[in-house]
Every structure is written in C-alpha cells, then in structure tokens.
C-alpha cells in the first residue's frame, strides 16, 4: 500500500473558516480545531474516506480536551478541540460516523459533555446506579467513588420498541446460563427471525480510566494488562508504547523481538480458543475439545518459558520483564512444528465436515460496506474485505523487520471469520520463527526517563482482536494524568447488531462467538 501523503491534500481542501493548528509531536500529528467546526470536519473526513478510530475526552484544569483519532492509509491524525467547562457542549460526529456513537455517549456519561445533534443520547456506560449529576471522570469526582448501600438496578433503559402481529421481545442476560462475561441483548423477533438486536453493555465497568490517574508507569502497565484479560499483552504493549513515546524512550531490539513473540503467542492462543468455541456453539464438540487441548499445551509452554500462562505483566515500560534462553527458543520451535502438524489434522477434519459447513457458511453476514462504515477491525473487518493491519500499515518494532501477511476475505460470514483466524495463526507461527531467528543479544529494558509534564503518546498496535489504541498524557513527577485504552471490541460490538439481522434467533450465539468482542475492554 502506498503511503502517499494525503494530509497536505486534505488540509488544503478544508474551508477557510476551519483553521487547523497542526502540532507535530514525537508520536503523532495533532490537529487542533475550533469546537464549532467539529462536526463539519467529520463530514469532510468521511468524504475523504478517513476512518474514525477512537474518541475520548480529558479534563485539564477548567477546560475539556476532546480528542478523536482518524486514520487513512496507515497514517493517524489526532483531532483535538478545547472547550470551556462553563459550556460543555460540542456538535456530534456520530451523525456521520456510526462508530463514534457509543464513544461520544461514553464521554457524555463520564464528563457531562453534551453532544449536539447526537442521534442517540441515552446513557451508555453510566447505568442508573450513578446519580444524574455525577461525572466520574471529572477531576472533582473522587477515585474511590461515592458508594451507596445497595446499587440501584439499571431499570427503564428505553430500548427500541417494535410493534406488530407476532413480534415479541427476548431479553438475554446480563446473567447467562454459561460462565461468560455479562452483557444484555434485547431481541425483537417474529417467529425465529431477528428483526432487531440491541446491545446493552457496561456491566463490567471497572473505572479503569479513573484509577489510572496518578499512577506510575510501572503500575499503569499492570493496569493496562488488566483492561481485558485475554488481551493482556496487547493492551500492556499499547500502553507501554504510548508511555515510551511520551518519555522519548527507545526500547532495545531484543526487547522488541520478545514483545513480538509474546503478542503473536497471545494471538495464536486466543484464535485457537475462538475457533473451538465457534464449533462448540453449533454443537460440534469434537473440534472444541481438540482446540482446547492445543491451546492448553500452548499456554503451558507460556508458563514454562515466560512464567505466566496468559503472559501477564511480561511487558514493562522500556522493555520486557522476561528473557528467552537458547533452550527456550528450541522448545518454542519444536512446539510450533508440532502445532502445525496437529492443526493440519484437525483442520482437515473440519474442512471436510458438511454439517459444520452448513452452519458456518452464509450465516452472520457482514457486508463490506457496513464493515467499512463502522471501520470494523481485526478478523471481523478482514473477513469483510477490510484490508487493514497495523503491523503492516504502520509498522512498529519488531514488525518493521519482517513481512506481515494479512489474511483478507470478502465473504463476510462466520466461516470467513473462522478461516481468517486460521490463516492468522499460520502467519503468526511464521512470525514467531522469524523473530526467534533474528533474536539479537542485548539489553532487555531501556532506562526510563521521566517525561515532561503534559507530554503525550499514542500507542497503536495490532492486538489479536485488531488495532488497539492507547492514549497517555503525563502529569508532573512521572505520574499519569490520562489513560484511555481503545479496545477493538468498542468498534466491533456495534457491527454485531448489523450482522445478526436476517438470521434466526438460535444462530445468534455462533454469530456472537465469531465476533467475540470483549465486554471488559468495552466497558472499561
């Protein structure tokens, strides 16, 4: 893909009344605009095919910084506007970017910033337990919260209604029959056909953004590793990258390679788990058992080689906290060879199974246009023709020294998301081998430098679910002022509401599993 410089071109097309102050920081380009043109910018951006990637706000003294991150051809732009505390309102960008919808509602809930013309101003993250006038991410709100005796239930959320003969509602969750994360799904169905699905998330809101404030870099890295347990490497890496950018720390090459190995191992483990779970949801338990077994062996190697099954806290600011001995490299390579062999056998059995094919093909179809409109990430986007991978488009160490093969399909169904995962596993195995071959002798961790007050960083990496964006701004004395992690699930969850349409109710679980969004990463 050509990395032509579209930014100059774009700036020249902006109207004369839209003054953009471009601030080039070490990590990214910040464009600052007036708040009243916030929506106009989005309208232009959507025409220029910029992808809306993330949005968050921050309180700095008595002003709010509102940020939105856009991307085109691998180049990221951080759009910013500053509004005064006395009049916290802003025109919405969700009118043109559907992906911005929930993000703006999150900002509205957490900061009390009103988005004018927002298509849907119902509460999102802040359930009814919060008093209406409390805005948790404002600086005057205490980090320990204001606990009450009994949390009031999240009642009377105005779900979208539908009427008609034979139309009925199915409320599912947030407590499910299986041991899974909590989330509420409201279906409107006629017979078995799904007319509409509405998600209601936020049940695992942990106040990650609030408790990140005033942390040290080490402690923030640990917190980032707990944004979503299954993406501990991804989030930790993104947060560390953001902090390293802010502090101007360059990690040693050996540390970068080990980070790459950790991230690819996490990708493989999760993809194997997902592939098994997809089969299990159509009652093909055999495949699930095989994938569970393979994943378990993989995790055990994680424990022996890296000291943690899920690789938690292996990445630290400035480098990594674990080394790879000669013997471990050998072990990993041997394991990869075995996994390839076993995987080939299992995959053959699945590929030849017509009953499985009947369930997975054509079900849960996500059209290419819909995926593009939402900016769908990771395997969800790639299965619907979104050729996008941070590792290739905006390469960062260690991916700048290897070729990353991106698996793209255009079928857009469950099977497609299944096979994209498989291809990603195969590609990731190659990457691990490449990284091991290139492993250089050297330091594991660079010395940390205290960043200047107000310095910021935008860590963007490709986690196993897709692009993770982590924003960090430092306060004085090496403390964090603002941390915002954008899990790919935040972008992908809304696409589930679209891809289940025209499917039947009993096919929803497998549609959901093929997307496998993180509840924790979404609710923060």
């Amino acid at each position, binding site marked *: 893909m050509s990395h032509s410089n579209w930014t100059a071109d774009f700036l020249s097309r902006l109207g004369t009344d839209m003054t953009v102050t471009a601030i080039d920081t070490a990590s990214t380009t910040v464009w600052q605009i007036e708040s009243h043109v916030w929506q106009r910018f989005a309208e232009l951006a959507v025409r220029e095919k910029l992808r809306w990637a993330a949005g968050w706000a921050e309180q700095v003294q008595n002003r709010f910084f509102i940020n939105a991150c856009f991307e085109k051809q691998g180049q990221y732009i951080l759009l910013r506007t500053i509004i005064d505390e006395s009049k916290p309102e802003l025109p919405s960008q969700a009118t043109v970017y559907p992906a911005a919808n929930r993000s703006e509602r999150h900002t509205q809930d957490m900061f009390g910033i009103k988005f004018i013309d927002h298509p849907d101003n119902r509460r999102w993250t802040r359930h009814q337990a919060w008093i209406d006038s409390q805005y948790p991410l404002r600086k005057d709100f205490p980090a320990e919260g204001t606990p009450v005796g009994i949390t009031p239930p999240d009642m009377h959320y105005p779900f979208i209604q539908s009427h008609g003969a034979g139309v*009925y509602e199915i409320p599912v969750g947030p407590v499910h*029959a*299986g041991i899974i994360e909590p989330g509420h799904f409201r279906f409107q169905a006629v017979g078995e056909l799904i007319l509409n699905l509405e998600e209601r998330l936020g049940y695992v809101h942990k106040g990650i953004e609030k408790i990140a404030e005033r942390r040290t870099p080490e402690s923030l890295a640990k917190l980032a590793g707990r944004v979503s347990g299954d993406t501990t490497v991804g989030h930790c890496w993104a947060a560390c990258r953001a902090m390293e950018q802010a502090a101007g720390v360059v990690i040693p090459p050996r540390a970068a390679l080990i980070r790459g190995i950790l991230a690819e191992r996490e990708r493989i483990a999760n993809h194997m788990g997902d592939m098994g779970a997809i089969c299990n949801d*159509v*009652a093909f338990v*055999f495949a699930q*058992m095989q994938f569970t077994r393979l994943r378990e062996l993989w995790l055990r190697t994680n424990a022996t080689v890296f000291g943690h099954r899920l690789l938690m806290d292996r990445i630290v600011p400035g480098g990594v906290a674990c080394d790879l001995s000669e013997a471990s490299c050998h072990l990993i390579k041997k394991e990869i060879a075995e996994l390839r062999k076993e995987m080939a056998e299992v995959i053959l059995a699945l590929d030849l199974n017509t009953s499985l094919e009947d369930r997975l093909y054509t079900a849960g179809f996500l059209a290419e246009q819909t995926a593009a409109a939402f900016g769908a990430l990771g395997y969800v986007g790639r299965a619907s023709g979104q050729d996008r991978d941070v590792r290739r488009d905006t390469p960062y160490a260690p991916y700048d020294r290897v070729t990353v093969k991106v698996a793209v399909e255009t079928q857009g169904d469950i099977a497609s998301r299944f096979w994209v995962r498989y291809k990603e596993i195969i590609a990731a195995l190659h990457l691990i081998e490449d990284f091991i071959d290139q492993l250089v002798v050297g330091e594991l961790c660079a010395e940390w430098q205290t960043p200047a007050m107000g310095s910021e960083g935008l860590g963007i990496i490709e986690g196993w679910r897709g692009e993770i964006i982590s924003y960090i701004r430092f306060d004085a004395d090496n403390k964090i002022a603002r941390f915002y992690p954008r899990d790919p699930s935040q972008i992908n969850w809304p696409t589930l509401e679209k891809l289940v349409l025209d499917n039947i109710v009993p096919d929803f679980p497998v549609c959901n599993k093929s997307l496998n969004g993180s509840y924790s990463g979404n609710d923060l």
Partner: protein
Amino acid sequence: MNWLIAVLQSMLFVVLAPLLAGWLKCCKCYLQNRKAPSVIQPYRDLLKLSHKQPVVAEQASWIFLISPYIIFSATVLAATVVPFIAVNLPTSASADVIVMVGFFAFARFFLALAGLDIGTAFGGMGSSREMTISSLAEPAMLMAVFTLTMTASTTNLSLAIAHVLNEGLVLRPSFVFALAALTLVAIAETGRIPVDNPATHLELTMIHEAMILEYSGRHLALIEWASQLKLMLYGVLIANIFLPWGIAETFSGQALGYGLLAIMGKLAVLAIFLAIAETLVAKMRLFRVQEYLSFAYLLGLLGMLSHIILEAAR
C-alpha cells in the same frame, strides 16, 4: 406372577435409564479424547438434585409445580408398554404402541405448558420449538410403527415382537426403511444432536433445555430422569423390534437373566453408534429440522409402500 414380573421389569427400566445416559456420556467423551466421568455419574446428579430445595418462581402456577410429576409418571407408564426383557407381559398386552405415543404426547403437553407458565421468553421459545418439532415427528413415528404393525397385523408391541421372533431372520425392506425412520425420529424426540444439544449452555439455541431452565431441585431431577427414560425407551424400542433375539419368551430365571443381558448389550452398542453420530455432525440449523423430519416421514412411507408391494402379497 406375570404382573409381578411386569412390575419388576418396569422398575428395572426406570432404574437402568440413568446408566444408559452415563454410558453414552462415556462413549462421547472417549470419542472426543476426553476423560469421562464415571458411568454412574447421572445417578449421583439425580441424588444431588433430589436433596436440593427447588426454587420456584413467584409467578409459577400449579401447572409448573405438578408438571414434573406428570411428565415422569407418563414416561414411566410409556415404559411399561414396551417389552424390555420379556414379551407377553400383561402390561404390554393391555396397551399398544399408539397408547405409548399418547403418553409421550401427554408428557410433552405438560412440559410445554410448564415452559410457558413462568412467562420467561426462553420457556415460551422452547415450548414453541418443541411443539413445532413434535408435530412433525409424531406422524413420522406413527408411519414407521404402522409399517411394523402391518407386518405383524397388530399394534400391540408384545405380539409384534413375538411375530418377528417366530418369522426368524428375514430381511424385509420395509423394516430397513422403518428402522431408519424410527432412528431419525428417536434422535429428534430425545433432543440429541443434530436436532437439539442436551449439553449446551446457550439459552437461545435450546429446545428441551429452554423449557426446563426454571426448574431446580427434585423437580429438575424428575424431568432429567424422565428424559433419560425416554432415551432408553426409544433405544429399547429400536433394539427389541428390529433385533428382538435374546428377549425372554418364558418367565424362567435363566431366560429373564439372558434377556436382561441381551438388551443391555444391545443398548450399549446402540449408544456407541449414537455417540459416534453425535461426534461426527454439528447441530443443524433450526429450520432444517423440518426437512430432516420430512425425510423421516418419507422413509416411513417408503417402508409401508415396500411392505404393501413386496411383502403383503405373500
């Protein structure tokens, strides 16, 4: 004496049903490269459930409370109709196969009502799906059974089995069709893969499990036991009608013991086949079930036609 044996046989039937479920689970685990729970695990589960206090929703009416007892009793009564280890017993003489299907329908009627009774979306959904499936399964089942009864000129299972025994080993095309039809129906009616998945936790995909989601404690134990009985009942039906050899024709201790061993062996083999089938296929899309059951009906019909064309003249 005959009545005593009939009662004993029915009791044995009820007692052995969880064992079959346990054995089936073992086979499936083995085929999935897993360590299996003990064969007697279903007994432990039933015992555990029976000790637990049932939790009943505030909205539950008397239908919800009595349904487990009705379902269990109706299934036990259906089991008395089917010759298990011996033929010519008074219980099977007093009722025929249509009565057995009636008992099933009766139990299902109450199960569906109980699913609707609480008023949760899942219960209603399960009941609706169950009724859809059974409305298609029952004709297919009757068609298969009629093929058999036409051969034996009786709807009484005991007499039909005795007839097959007397005829000796004859390959009847009609029986092959009827066996296939009955097997398909049995899989649908007992909620096995590919029609339903008894082991799922996904509420939205459930059929049988969705109706009983609100049940707990001894109520759940009775319903679970009833579904184990139903599974065994279909197994016995298939085993004893199509391969009746070994069943006791006299009531001597030796014949009865031999009969028990024979049926247990046959059921064990059938369970292995079922486990293999369940491991090989995924659950089908819900709207494929009608095609599946129509196919079962077609097989039943073909069985009857081949009986009329090929066998009846002789």
